[in-house]
């Protein structure tokens, strides 16, 4: 009798462990099933192609912020950094024959120059944040809360002075193609966006898993004391991670600018929350020290599938907010369960 009890208990434990580990995916799958039942045509290849394309710049941004979350920190300045990068890059890359050019005498620049410039610009702001966070020990939440306001103010002055607050348009066709173009085959095209996201994922995967910086990042996020007494230069590693994140924001921002074709100072607003949500859904722990690149990519894709799917079956947009909110809370609740000690 008691043996059966123990066997039953073991089985129960295994099942509950499995459910806990995969609860989020099960919920997502359940939602997807509902979407498909309501509208079977959702399963068309074209929809997924569209979703992956739409997810691409989000993947790049999420991977940038994911490194910071793995450090055990957070960053609210992502969205405004993206906006700044979009504004600056598109202001420098307007078509030569466009009548309302911001810089009328600016010659046509090779598009890599402004892109590198905004990557540098975002990195500089991130360096400042990293120093404030690691040296002055300001909570990252507060430091980035302040910085997103500073960045927003600066970019608004920029766009206000130079363009009278109207959207920046008339972009250089080469720049537009940089985001909207694709490699064409006979009857199949791979958007550049997907390729950028793929390259970014590979680079970040390499950094996280193969380099000293990546190992140190996990160690700092997992136990900063241990890293310090083991001789890790904590400040330098935090700095490097923030610079990489800044570069990702800058690149992602330029992409968003080129993709939308008409840039205002509202671009990027709230992106940081989407990115953090995707990371959390993808298993990056807000406690730091835990997370994988495939997890982050999956998180972004799942989020986007649900998002798009809800639109596809015509769910009220306000209800979509509720569903998204519940998914985020559920994700963190499940993550926390792994660390709760039962007494």
């Amino acid at each position, binding site marked *: 009798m008691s043996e059966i009890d123990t066997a039953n208990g073991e089985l129960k434990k295994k099942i509950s462990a499995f459910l806990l580990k995969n609860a989020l995916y099960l919920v997502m799958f359940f939602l997807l099933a509902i979407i498909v039942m309501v509208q079977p045509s959702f399963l068309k290849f074209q929809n997924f192609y569209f979703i992956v394309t739409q997810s691409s710049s989000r993947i790049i941004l999420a991977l940038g912020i994911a490194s910071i979350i793995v450090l055990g920190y957070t960053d609210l300045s992502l969205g405004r950094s993206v906006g700044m990068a979009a504004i600056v890059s598109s202001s420098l890359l307007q078509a030569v024959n466009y009548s309302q050019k911001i810089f009328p005498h600016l010659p046509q620049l090779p598009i890599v120059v402004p892109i590198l410039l905004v990557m540098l610009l975002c990195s500089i702001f991130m360096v400042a944040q990293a120093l404030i966070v690691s040296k002055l020990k300001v909570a990252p939440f507060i430091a980035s809360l302040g910085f997103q306001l500073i960045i927003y103010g600066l970019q608004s002055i920029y766009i206000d002075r130079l363009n009278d607050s109207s959207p920046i348009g008339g972009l250089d066709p080469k720049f537009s193609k940089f985001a909207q173009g694709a490699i064409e085959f006979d009857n199949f095209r791979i958007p550049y966006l997907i390729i950028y996201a793929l390259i970014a994922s590979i680079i970040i995967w390499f950094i996280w898993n*193969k*380099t*000293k910086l990546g*190992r*140190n990042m*996990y*160690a700092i996020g*997992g*136990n900063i*004391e*241990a*890293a*310090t*007494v*083991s*001789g*890790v*230069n904590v400040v330098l590693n935090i700095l490097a991670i923030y610079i990489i994140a800044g570069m990702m924001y800058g690149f992602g921002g330029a992409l968003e600018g080129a993709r939308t074709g008409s840039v205002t100072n509202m671009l990027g607003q709230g992106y940081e929350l989407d990115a953090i949500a995707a990371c959390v859904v993808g298993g990056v722990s807000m406690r730091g*020290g*835990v997370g994988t690149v495939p997890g982050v990519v999956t998180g972004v894709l799942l989020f986007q599938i649900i998002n798009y799917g809800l639109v596809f079956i015509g769910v009220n947009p306000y209800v979509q907010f509720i569903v998204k909110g519940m998914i985020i809370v559920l994700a963190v609740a499940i993550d926390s369960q792994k660390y709760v000690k*039962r*007494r």
Partner: protein
Amino acid sequence: MYVLEMRGIKKQFPGVKALDNAQLLLRPGTVHALMGENGAGKSTLMKCLFGIYQKDEGEILLNGKPVSFENPRQALDNGVSMVHQELNQVLERSVLDNIWLGRFPMRGMIVDDKKMLLETESIFEQFKIKINPQQKIGSLSVSERQMIEIAKAVSCNARIIVLDEPTSSLTESEVEHLFSIIKALRQQGVAVIYISHKMDEIFSIADEVTVMRDGHWIMTSQVTDITRDQLISSMVGRDFSSMFPPKKNKPSDEILLKVRNLTGVYQPTVRDVSFDLYKGEILGVSGLVGSRRTEMVETIFGYRKLKHGEIYINGHLLKEHTPRESIAHGLGLVTEERRATGIFPLMDIQFNAMIANIDNYCKFGLVNYKKSTKDTKWVIDALSVKTPSQRAAIANLSGGNQQKVILGRWLLTSPKVLLLDEPTRGIDVGAKYEIYQLMIDLASKGNAIIFISSEMPELLGVTDRILVMSNGRMAGIVNTAETDQEELLRLAAKYI
């Protein structure tokens, strides 16, 4: 002559002179014990060496050359490594990553995992450590993690290794294992600084001993030239005729705490523990690491969930099994992990003293500070807590004084039964004596005490009976006067 000379070291923290003229002279190829009561400044001195703290004054000579490390990196680069008292490990990462953190072997831009694995395996083989290097470190036991830290310190090829209380979570056979590693290191000419409170260990492993008190250097001697009593008296600064105060409590036949078939829900837990605790009695609890002594008292206290079993306090059956109910009926629990579950580090002594009893100081939700100030004063006086004021943050006190405040906290609840989980761990000899005295005084006033300890001499010196736990079950209860260490060890292995 000396591999390391630290002379005239001074270090001031806000309000506390942690080090004042501290000195340590270390010869190569020796094990040098660094002793002193808690708060004597041993760890602070070592942190000044290792670059975690910066000394205010004094000189540190390494191989005759003056050094002053600004961070642990520089210390490690100069052949000084340290095993910290609090295990500083990244639990979510592998054993490998933890051992090589800070000095990953590289192949170009890439961390050389293969080399890491090979070198780790050879170190493990050399020191007979049987742990899979690719396992996540969080899945290991505390004693395994302790061994990993030691292996890490050794793998740095350090010429000086500081071990700060390395045996606090090791079993006897593991301690022997550690000693064999230390002896091998000594053979290789490595100098080991060994911080410990355990006298037996000092006399079995150390060559020289330096004693510190109140941040001062007191003496340095060959271990063979000094007796245990001399060592203790130089640590506490007064003569010490005996380790334990005279026992004057007399257990009556009135049962204060009755426990029947105590069984918990979540692992690790205890199974079917039954015993009676009498008025005026001190009941010791012995057992190996992992025998779940802590889980037993935490289950009694209602901190862990009860599956079945009954607990009666003074004949009253507990129903809710929550800490609130237990406290209301006269139970008090001093937890094992003082830092993690005992103190509120940034709050002052007064807050720490009254928090278990806050209802008593409140009227209509407002705190009566007059009363709590008076009671805190009583705690400070009655337990002779060394503190500048009631308003000092408890984190600024030494471990022994923190423990006294925690004990005072429970005394203010006027408990009938006190559950003390390793109350003397990591505190100095003088404070230990005071805590033994307090336990005996309480028992002779008609309280009852459950006293968990890993140190058998103190169980044999203070208790009336000893309950031995083995693998979550009760292996037996023996009369202290009629037992010895061998019987306790035999019982402790009963269900393994």
